[in-house]
Each structure stands twice: as C-alpha cells, then as structure tokens.
C-alpha cells in the first residue's frame, strides 16, 4: 500500500501530473507515511528526469513539468515534516536568482528544483534581482552558496557587480558563488571571480556539491 503511494508519486512527477502528485502527497500524509521517505521518492524521480534531460533523452518542458509536479506536492510534505518534527539533513543553504535587468526564469528555476531535490535548502529570490537584494538574502539566510543566472549577454556583467558588492561588504569569502545562464561561459565566470560555472542544470547540482565538499 505504502509502496503504491510512493510509486504513484514517482510516476506523477515523471508524467508531470500536478493534480495526482498533490493528491498522492495528501494520501501519504493521511496514511502516516514517513515524510522523509516520501521526499526521497520524489527526489529520486526528479533526479531521474534531470539525468535523462542531461543525456538528451528528455526535453526542457519535461523537466519543467516534472519540477512543477514536484512543487505541487512539496508544500504538503514539508508541512508534514515540520509537524512530525522529522529532521532532514540539509546539504547547505542556497540563495538563487536571475540578476537585475533579466527576467528569464526557466533555467534558474530548474537549478533550484534540482538543488532542492538533492537536499539543499534553496531560497529562490526570483528574477530581476538587484545586488543589494542578493546580499540581504545571503545575510538573512546565512547562505552557503549564491547561485546567479543571466540569459542575456547584456545582463551578464550584473553578476560581476554582485560579486564586487560582496567583496566590498566582506562577505565574499564566507560564501561559494556559482553562475550560469545562456550568456555565461567558463572564462567569464573565472574573470568575474565566481567559484564555478556549469552550462546545464544537472551539472549545476554536481557543482554545488563540489563547492561545499559534500
């Protein structure tokens, strides 16, 4: 019975059936399943989708859809985790967002979902985020990693601005910085003093683990 729910949840995510994912999450709570086990099942599913995307077997909307389905179920499970007082070990805290002037969100959201699935605590600030907003969030959440996205070459230099602001306020050495987005290259990342870059969302997860040594 329990396995049936978990299996169904996995399937709902892979077939991006938001409604089913949400319903099954509710049923899992009703049946008093260990919320951490439920979370694990969802994580495995989204990771499988991410890997298939990385191989080129699945396409962007599949990943976006799966992430959406997971987001539909997530609050219910998180609520249950909180209620039962279960402790989920977090790999680290990430502050993420698309830089100021840029309102593209697909890639950034993808990375956030996969990081969450991996076990990071992710604070997705959204798009068009100014340097001071990033800094504010980093302080508030005591973040381990800052993840910035920029799709347009025009807005890529904004990432540099944020890093310089971090240096100025003495926060640079307290945090790992990863950058990504269509406009970013390895060289650019190095040039602006970021700690890492990866062109793909699944790659970004590996990078995040590497950066914090987990």
């Amino acid at each position: 019975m329990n396995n049936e729910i978990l299996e169904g949840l996995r399937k709902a995510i892979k077939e991006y059936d938001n409604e089913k994912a949400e319903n099954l999450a509710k049923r899992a709570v009703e049946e008093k399943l260990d919320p951490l086990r439920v979370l694990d099942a969802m994580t495995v599913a989204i990771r499988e989708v991410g890997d298939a995307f990385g191989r080129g077997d699945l396409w962007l909307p599949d990943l976006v859809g799966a992430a959406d389905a997971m987001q539909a179920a997530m609050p219910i499970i998180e609520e249950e985790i909180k209620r039962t007082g279960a402790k989920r070990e977090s790999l680290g805290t990430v502050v993420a967002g698309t830089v100021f002037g840029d309102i593209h969100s697909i890639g950034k959201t993808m990375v956030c979902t996969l990081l969450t699935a991996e076990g990071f605590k992710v604070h997705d600030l959204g798009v068009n985020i100014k340097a001071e907003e990033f800094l504010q969030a980093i302080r508030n959440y005591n973040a381990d990693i800052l993840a910035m996205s920029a799709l347009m070459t025009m807005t890529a230099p904004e990432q540099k601005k944020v890093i310089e602001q971090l240096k100025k306020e003495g926060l640079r050495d307290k945090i790992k910085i990863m950058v990504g987005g269509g406009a970013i290259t390895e060289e650019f990342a190095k040039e602006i003093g970021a700690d890492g870059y990866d062109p793909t969302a699944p790659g970004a997860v590996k990078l995040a683990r590497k950066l914090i040594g987990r």
Partner: protein
Amino acid sequence: MGYYEVEFEPVGRRGKCRDDESVLDCAHRLGVGIVSLCGGRGKFHCCKIQIIKGSVSKPTKSEIEFFSSEELKDGYRLACQTYLKSNCKIKVPLESLTTPQRLQLEGLEIGVKLNPPVKSCDVKLSPPSMVDLRGDDERIMDDLNHQFNLSCRKFDIDVLKNMSSLLRSSRWEARVFVRDNEVVSISSKHSSGLGLAVDLGTTKIAGYLLDLDSGKTLSSSGVMNPQISYGEDIVSRITYAMESPAKKKKLQEVVVNTLNSLTADLCRRANVEKERIVEAVIVGNTVMHHLLLDLPVDQLAVSPFVPAVQNSLDVKSRDIGLNIAPGAYIHLLPNIAGFVGADHVAMLLATERIWKDDDLVIALDIGTNTEVSLIDNGDITSVSCASGPAFEGAHIKDGMRATNGAIERLQLIGDEVKYQTIGKVPPVGLCGSGILDAIAQLYLAGVISRDGKMNDHPRIRFHNNQKEFVLVDEKENGSPAITITQKDVREIQLAKGAIRSGIDVLLQERGHFEQEIKKVIIAGAFGSYINVASAVSIGMLPPLPLNRFQQVGNAAGIGAKLALLSIEERFKAEAIAHRASYIELAASPDFEKIFLRATYLG
C-alpha cells in the same frame, strides 16, 4: 614584451605578432578577417585556427573541452585563446574566415513618386557691378527665392568656401542643391544630384547609389561590416565600446572608412564623382545606428535597454567623416526601441504596400535577434526574440556561415541524403537554410520526434557520447563526416522556439489566432534563402498555407532607398515608428509556457 613573425594561410598575410596579444587580435590588426562571435571570450568556438608551424601557448580548458585530442594534436586552436611563443605559420580554415560571403542585395523593388528632400535648381545670375553690389550668397538666394519660389536662407559653410570661384569660372550659371531652406551643394555642371542609401547591418553592409532625378539605382554593392573584428554580435560590440571612449570611436572610424570605400566603389561602377552625392540615408539596428554616430551605447546595455536617440535625425556627412558632398546631410530613420531599430522601420516602410490592406500581418526579420511585428488594423506591435546565432551556423557542430561549401538545401529520400552546396563544391558544413532543411526532413521522416528526441535509423550512430545523424559520410568527401547531433536539434529547438514564441505572444497580446494571419512577410538575407516549407514543418513559423508567406529579401535596403527618394516616405517612416509599440517578450505573463510549447517541433 617580444615580437614574433606570423604568417596567415591561405590569405597569405604576414606580420609581427606581440607575445602579449592573442592570435585573434593580431589577425584583426593585420586585416585578416577571423570570425569572432563572442568578442574574444572563447565562448562560441568560432575562431578556429590551425598552427602549421611554430610553438604557441598551452590550450585553455575550453579548448581542451571543445577540440578532440586528435584535433589538438593537429594544432587546432581558438585564435582568441592562443598566444605565440615563436615564429608561426597559421592556417585559417574556410569556416573561420569572415569573407567572402554571399551578399543579399536585391530586394523588392517598388515604384515611388519622386520627391527627394534635396531639390536641384539651375540659376543664371547677373554678375555683380558697380550698381549691384550684392554678395554672392545674396545673389543666389534672391534668384532661388524668386525663380523657384523658395525661402532659402542658409548656406552650408563648405558650399560658401568654393562658391565664389565656381560662379566666376562658370559665367554665373550653376546648379544649386537646396534642402529645406539651405544650400547644401553647388555645381557648375548640369548633372543630376545623387543619393546614397545604406543598409548598415551587424554583419553586412549593402549600399546603393541612386539618381535623385530619375529615381534609378545606378550601382549597388555589398561589403562586410568591419566591426566584426571587434565582436560578431551587437552585444560584444557594445561591450567593446564600453571599455573606453577611444574604442567606441574606433568602431565608428572603421565603419565610416568602410562606408567611404563602399561609396567610392559605387561611384566607380557608375562612373560618377562622389561629390555629386547630395543626400544619404543610412538604416541599421539601434546599436549600429548609435555606433555610427558615436552616440552613447551604455544605456542600451542595461535594463530597460533604451536608445539615446529614438527620433529620426539629420546630421552633416562631414560630422561623421563620410566623403560625399561636404554640405550633404545623412538622414537616419527613427528607432522603435533598443532592440528594434531603424532597419526594422525601413523594412516596414518598404513592405507597406504588402501589409497596408490586410488586417493581420506578421513581418519578421530573422537573425541573431529576430524582430517580429504584428500589424493589426494599423497598430504595430513589435518584439525582439533572442533566437541566437544557431541559424548562422554557430552552436551547431557542423554549422557554418553561408560561404562556399555550405550545404544550403537538403532532402532525405528514403535513407539517402540529397543536398546542394553553395558554389557547387564538396560539402564542408551546413549553413542556416541547410540546418533548417535537415531538421525538417529528419522530423518529417520520423527520425526526430516532436519533442526533439532522435530515434533509431540506419544513419544514426553514437559518437562522442551522443546520438548523431550522418548526412555526409567520412568517405564521401575525404574529410570528416557532416552530421546533425542530438545537441544540434536542441539548439534549433531553442532558436525556433524563440521566434515562434515571439509570434505567439504578439497574437495573444492582440487577441488573435494564427489562422487569422493573412500574410507573413519574411525579410533579410537568411529569411530569403530558407525553404519556407521547412520552417513551417518544424513549427518555426505558423502552419498557414504557403501562399500567405512572402520572402522579400533585403527590404531594409529598399526602405532606405524609398526614404532617399521621397519626403513623403520619410513621413511614412515617422508614422510607422510612431504607431509601433514595443513589448518585452519575457515580461509577457505566459511567456514561459508559450516558449516551452514553441520548442516542440511541428
């Protein structure tokens, strides 16, 4: 700091290369046109070179990732990442050269009622005498105003410098060129005034020399935009210009130099003197426009990306150093927004007679940035889509620009691939129209599914850890195979999704369905070469009967010509720009959904 001798093959250019300048910078300094899409940041892997002799710096990480170990062993490198360590001989592969390219010059010619802004007036003056002591300027002005009913009040300073001697040697007869209330040129001969129309593209420049009396095109010519050496796309060029005022000035200088040689070439072909050119119209995108005039570009690079100048402009040719009649003006059409410039206005102007009687028309110019306008009952709504350089061959494994050896047409018949190359030479790679055909053919044959996934097929193989479809075998031409990889398909899905989502967002914004579209006007070089059926097959363009599509060639150039020949056309251009509103694609509420849907094939 040291110097080494360098020789570039096959162009045969030799020179000195500093040890602290990249091979790319050195090549550009020596006038060797190597493609540089990213402005030297190693991003697009387009400035591929081969070291034939000599030693150079070690490959960077991105080079090691990009090249296979064989290629590295064979001396393949990226010019922007390579520094000399000894005298060297370097080969520039065909696909890395910026020239020669096929240029698109012919467009949709349409008649226009002549009413050029510069009028020619023949004056016959009475010479000064003891009882008529009027100055030369006053003498001409009186004659013009009485005989031609003008209210001329001004003389260009350069006209005044030559006028007196000219009048005396021509027995007080002259042809005077008047623009608004100003004399802009004077000639002793009764030859007609000429006009120069230029479409200043990011990659290519097309120039036309016109007779303002007859409206006829005397000569036309095309050259590459020399700013390519400083970055292939507009963003790289803005980045370069922002580094220092001197660098920004440099971008103006090189383009004006090229405009001058283009003008000289046009005049030579038509056997006329360049001083006879009394008016010019130059159209370009907003960045080209600003760089030509040495206007600030910084604000174009930051949100919300506004132009410094949106309205039409008249500047003296000598203010930017354009060598035509020194008093002549250059007219610049208005820009719509930072990402939709005067070239788009010129295109809409040129195609006005195609769209003005239909209530729903899409007009688009496909490029790295694709501008799309929806004309709905007189309202024009425009977007700019970041379609990327995939259709120019970048980001595609065997992609190349439209030069000799590029597959431009392709068909899949059974398991056999039939193709046609530019220049009818053995295939080297695929240019935009070839890539488009290939994806469409593979999709129609079921080799690629709707979501872009490659299925099994005898020609599909695994190579470098990914699936690829072999279009041309290794054996067939003695060089590496030409293939379409799974990643290539993904790149095209993103590019075509960007274009299609632009169209879809416009339709949604205005509350229309695609079937209501009466016409789709496709302008620009790439758009003119593509097989529209392929573009429709993969869903880059909406599924409409093919007779609703019209490929119009370089319509921006035609628009520039029209604005040269008629004041009314300039007013029309103003009106078009005035009626046009720009919307930011990504800010549209459903953009993400629309874009993702648009990335599917079919």
